[in-house]
């Protein structure tokens, strides 16, 4: 089986960046496309391993259904939760306007 070298195109990378919610400059798109191509090609060897009928690994130490009592408990105070907000207004996190005024 011929090993096809995978290249991540600019278009692919832009799509991935969009999914990741990471804005990139034009030159960054090229550089990351190259990096990702190197990574993907280095790990293509997984195809050599036969996995027909193999289950995906479940929780690695065999834990299942770990529950707790459905009782409310202590949580962060409002003050602590807002501790690192860049801006706050009346106990709300404040961000830049992102909804257009009608």
């Amino acid at each position: 089986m011929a090993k096809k070298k995978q290249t991540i195109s600019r278009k692919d990378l832009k799509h991935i960046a969009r999914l990741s919610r990471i804005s990139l400059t034009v030159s960054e798109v090229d550089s990351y496309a190259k990096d990702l191509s190197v990574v993907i090609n280095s790990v293509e060897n997984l195809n050599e391993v036969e996995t027909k009928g193999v289950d995906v690994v479940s929780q690695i130490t065999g834990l299942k259904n770990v529950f707790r009592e459905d009782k409310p408990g202590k949580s962060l105070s409002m003050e602590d939760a807002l501790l690192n907000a860049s801006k706050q207004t009346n106990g709300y996190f404040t961000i830049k306007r992102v909804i257009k005024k009608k």
Partner: protein
Amino acid sequence: MNLQELTVEQASHDLNNKKYSAVELAESVFSRIDTVDKKVEAFILVTKKQALASARKYDEGKAPDTMIAGVPGSLKDLFNWKGTVTTASSNIIKNYVSPYNATVTQRLIDAGAVIAGKTNMDAFAHGSSTETSDFFTTKNPWNLGYLPGGSSGGSAAAVISGMGLYSIGTETAGSIRHPSSWCGLTGLKPTYGRVSRYGVIAMGSSLDSPGPICKSVVDCAILLEVLAGNDPKDATTSPSKPGSYYKDMNSDVKGLKIGLPRRYFDEEQIEGDVIKKVREALVVLEKRGAQIVDIELMDPKYAIAVYTFVCRSEVSSNLARFDGIRYGHVSEKHVESIDELISNNRGSGFGQEAKRRIMTGTYALSSGYYDAYYKKAQQVRNLIKKDMEAAFKKVDVIIGPTTPSTALKVGATEGNPLFGEISDVLVEAGTMSGCPGLTLPVGFDKKDLPVGMNVVAPQFDEQLLINIGSAFQEETDWHKKYPNL
């Protein structure tokens, strides 16, 4: 007081016998940091006020009666510690003040430990060098032109330099053991789920394992007792009771079966000096009655691929929370939509390596590629796990070199987008299987750089690792060596 010689065990006895006070001990550590850290650059944050307050409490007789009480150490800067800045060495949260304590932090505080500061790391733990910290590169105290390893490089550099007597790091694949090996220290990666991940800035949720970096196995046992245990705040912690690792230490290794996987001693992939020192160390264990058994494990190259996909996929999910809305970096640019806002915050806040890893993970999980990459990786992971389990039916532990080479020069990671995963090739199969591992210093190469030997046990058998390590450290002095700074 020679802080590079002083172990946690010895300091605990000295404090008990009032040879010196906890405040004096802490002051020595801070004095050491003042002298040496400008060369080594291990610390991001030095917490003198908090440390001296804990030390004073010990001296006033108000600390609990534990072996770690009054003893100063440090935390890798991804453990939340209420009131301190916790950055994961990333610009995106460089001003983030922890509003709560990680369970690891809380356990150390409750045990009376004295925390001297937060140490440098590869940003978000994405690396094996500490060179991809967004802030600065920590140097290897054995040779300042070399890297300390990573991602817990700051922790390792701090301990070997005497800037504290222990540090707590984390590992997904090598991040405790790799820098421990490169810095001549003893590092223990517990079984996944043995120590709580609550409050740890996450990298890979199915892999992250907090653990100690110390100057001896005995010290690691003491620290593991403080850290281990079930945590209702982390549903992936084991319900099983942890051992009394220090009390139950038993260095009798007669009849112990040590598995050596042929592929982990490949002279083409691993430095000759490294293999030589590990083989010499194995002779020491044989003299104590251990038996060497040759075993075959899957080619470790597949573990690299599995780890790359699984870990980076989990990273893409875990780092989605860094959007600048509730905390973290906010971009100055004008935006018209929430997407733009978040994308700008992340684009300008994250470093290169974080972006690379997030995007690799996103790609592996995306529609059209999920089956070929992530699902395939999780299937092969299952094969790796079964491969390890089969090996443990024949042997008690598996031993190999910890890293393929000794420390590399500062700058070595440039231009290599897979550096981290390749450096950790010898530990990835073990961590993918959830197994615990211990690295022991076993000598030096021709450049006078430390060599580490990795011992891997079945899940939850940390006691076995500690026992083997204590047998080895009864016979050798490598763990007592330290660099002059």
